[in-house]
């Protein structure tokens, strides 16, 4: 789905989202009449220090002056891989964006990620994966690591990796793998109104607790994470 179609279907009552060099900023009117802040990355743009600081600024400004949910719409590259970005402390800029989103969510501004294209690595962590609920749209193709790069590092041919990917969702790219692992909570149908699906999601919003590991276990994609985290949590609590 194209960005224009997504925004039109999600906000039939109008929106003012602008795409400025791949940085999405604006807001849209919800079915309820409330406004939602919309931020994001489009056109498979890499997320560097210059983009991240504008997105975090919008989130913090909205915490101060706005209300309603925050939507994070993503079709990005990975983080911008450059000397300049690392020199300036890209890790701090990306962490700051993620922290701003998580803080907003904890403080009553529910965050929803909408993955409609690509995303990877640090850009994925700072945007879509820093939201409470992540929605996958048809055509989304997230890749934590692409198979050619994996092939280079693991020294295994791509055909071998593709073969192995059939038995586990744990390493290969693709939306379905991330659904199975619990990273993507729900996928939407582009044949029906996105506004309806968003309204339904907002109505049934879970509390702010991170349940992605439990979801990954239910769906058979991550069998150990939830149990290990819970065992360590219990042991730690006993030190009281």
């Amino acid at each position, binding site marked *: 789905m194209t960005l224009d179609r997504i925004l039109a279907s999600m906000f039939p009552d109008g929106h003012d989202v602008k795409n400025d060099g791949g940085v999405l900023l604006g807001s849209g009117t919800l079915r309820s009449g409330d406004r939602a802040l919309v931020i994001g990355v489009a056109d498979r743009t890499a997320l560097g*220090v210059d983009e991240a*600081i504008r997105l975090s*600024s919008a989130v913090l400004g909205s*915490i*101060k002056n706005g209300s309603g949910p925050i939507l994070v719409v993503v079709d990005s590259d990975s*983080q911008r*891989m*450059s*000397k300049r*970005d*690392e*020199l*300036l*402390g*890209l*890790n*701090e*800029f*990306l*962490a*700051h964006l*993620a*922290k*701003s989103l*998580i*803080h907003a969510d904890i403080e009553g501004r529910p965050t929803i990620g909408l993955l409609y294209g690509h995303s990877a*690595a*640090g850009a994925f962590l700072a945007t879509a994966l*820093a939201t409470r609920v992540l929605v996958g749209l048809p055509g989304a193709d997230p890749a*934590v*690591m692409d198979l050619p790069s*994996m092939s*280079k*590092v*693991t020294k295994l041919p791509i055909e071998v990796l593709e073969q*192995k990917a059939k038995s*586990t969702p*744990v*390493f290969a790219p693709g939306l379905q793998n*991330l659904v199975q*692992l*619990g*990273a993507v909570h729900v996928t939407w149908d582009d044949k029906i109104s996105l506004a309806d699906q968003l309204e339904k999601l907002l109505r049934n919003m879970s509390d702010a607790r*991170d349940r*992605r*590991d439990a979801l990954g276990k239910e769906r058979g994609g*991550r069998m*150990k*994470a939830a*149990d*290990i*985290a*819970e*065992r*360590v*949590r*219990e042991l*730690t*609590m006993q*030190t009281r």
Partner: protein
Amino acid sequence: MSVADLEKPSVERARATSFYEASARARIRLLLDPGSFVEFIGPEQREVSPHLKLFDLPEQFDDGIIVGHGQLAGSPVFIAAQEGRFMGGAFGEVHGAKLTGLLRAAKEMKSIPVLILLDTGGVRLQEANAGELAIAEIMRAVIEARTAGVKVIGLIGGRSGCYGGGGLIAGCCSALAVSEQGRIAVSGPEVIETNRGVEEFDSRDRALVWRTMGGKHRRLIGGAELFADDTVQAFREAALELLETTSGFGIDTLNAEQSRLEDRLQRFGACRDAVEIWAAEGVPDAASVPALPADQFIELADKLRRIARDAR
């Protein structure tokens, strides 16, 4: 034996032990009060990665991370240490879940701080999706713990540095101490070179790597609160100082960080190299920074820049 007798040889050993060279277990043993460490889900439980065998790779019984509790100068702390010599300290499903569980408990208990000894290349490729998600869960758990009033201190000085998602976790901590060897970045030198070419970043130019990502640069631009010499004792003292001086977390912290980072972009955004940034920051002989011994560098850094304690 009195407590003083027990402690003395430990301090001497901690002073003589390189943090960089030490294993994760040795770091914990020498960093905490002697004999105080208790591990959760230790290697005897053999909770190995369920994914490495698919790639015929050796497993480790603790999956490359140690989590537990102990005492630091008589006060309780939770601690996690990554073993940079196993799979580059990379985050996998089990490895990450151990840290997530520790942070979730710290959040509920509210008063006991967490020390994280980061030593990582980022996501473990053989379980890339699970590792990426583990990092996202850890970031969320760090922020939830900090929101509940918990101090989360990152200590960075290991062989694998602190790369990829590890760099983002570091940026979520309340405060960081870093040694010269403790590089902090998102994209590693090889990753930049592979994707953008050797003209953008020559990964074999070690001096370039240190001055772009190393601990001295991070301290000078405000990416870390403290610079530590490469001994376990120096990191112990840094942890104690950070626990003392670190403030809480909330919207004011985030607004202060937004200003801090905007200011950095404005002042240094056009600089092409770290030496230019250091000169702009007021370092008298910027080119000499990489060669400065730790004590002289700390003196210089303290004189130049008072680190904001409320902007991370």
